[in-house]
């Protein structure tokens, strides 16, 4: 179990650092790179949680498609670097930071409270208890195409709408 723990810690730290990087990098391209790093480390955590399909989906869809789109736009528009320390709206900045810290404390405190008050079994052991099929493409597909068929089909509608919206927006008037 040691390997997984170590990998989890490394990936988690990487995820946090890269998330900070997304927010703090002055140039949007570097933010995008940091987001890529974040996605990959989160995908690694997914893998550790035995969600193999989600690992692949995260990489293919998020990293391979959505983020590439971001990168396209960023490189094409090539916005100027931005110094977040020099913000006209001081109140906004102060409020954001204080609220963010508060939210973090609240969430982490709540989680720790919840997880310590109730005895939680070890993550890996719960997964193995739940059966080795958890997270496989087969189990996931079973759930997706039986119980969640209608929501699944509805997402296709959502994508269609987004597609049309993008075409409309992209058309030069």
């Amino acid at each position, binding site marked *: 179990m040691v390997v997984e*723990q170590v990998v989890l810690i490394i990936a988690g730290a990487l*995820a*946090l650092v890269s*998330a900070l990087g*997304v*927010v703090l990098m002055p140039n*949007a391209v570097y*933010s995008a790179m940091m*987001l890529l790093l*974040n996605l990959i480390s*989160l995908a690694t955590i*997914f893998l550790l*949680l*035995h*969600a193999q399909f*989600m690992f692949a*989906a995260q990489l293919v*869809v*998020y990293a391979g498609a*959505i*983020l590439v*789109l*971001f990168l396209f*736009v*960023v490189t094409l*528009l090539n*916005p100027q670097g*931005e110094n*977040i320390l020099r*913000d*006209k709206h001081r109140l*906004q900045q102060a*409020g*954001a930071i204080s609220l*963010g810290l508060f*939210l*973090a404390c609240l*969430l982490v405190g709540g*989680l*720790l409270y919840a*997880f310590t008050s109730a005895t*939680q079994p*070890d*993550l*890996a052991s*719960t997964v193995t208890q*739940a059966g080795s099929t*958890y997270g496989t493409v087969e189990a*996931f597909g079973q*759930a*997706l195409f039986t*119980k969640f068929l209608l929501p*699944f089909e509805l*997402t296709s509608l*959502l994508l269609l709408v*987004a*597609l049309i*919206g*993008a075409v409309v*927006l992209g058309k030069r008037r």
Partner: protein
Amino acid sequence: MSGITITMVISALVFTIGACGVLLRRNPLVQFMSIELMLNAGNLAFISFGGMTGSAEGQVFVLMVLTVAAAEAVVGLGIIVAMFRRRRRIDVDEVNSMEG
């Protein structure tokens, strides 16, 4: 600290960082990326709880989130590009009136 606690704390922190990013950055593209961070934090929470309960429903939710994120990115980026075409600068603070 068990695995699920670690992942959930990571999820909470990434979410907070994303939220702060939306509030602090003036570049809409980075704001968007911060929103993606928040969505990803949500995904991690879904998968953690899914793994805890051993049901695939968490993963199904993640798939929905992926779809929504894709749709949102397409439309949002389209809007940003349209904004850029019109103003030649992208700064959300400048988009503060309804008129074109």
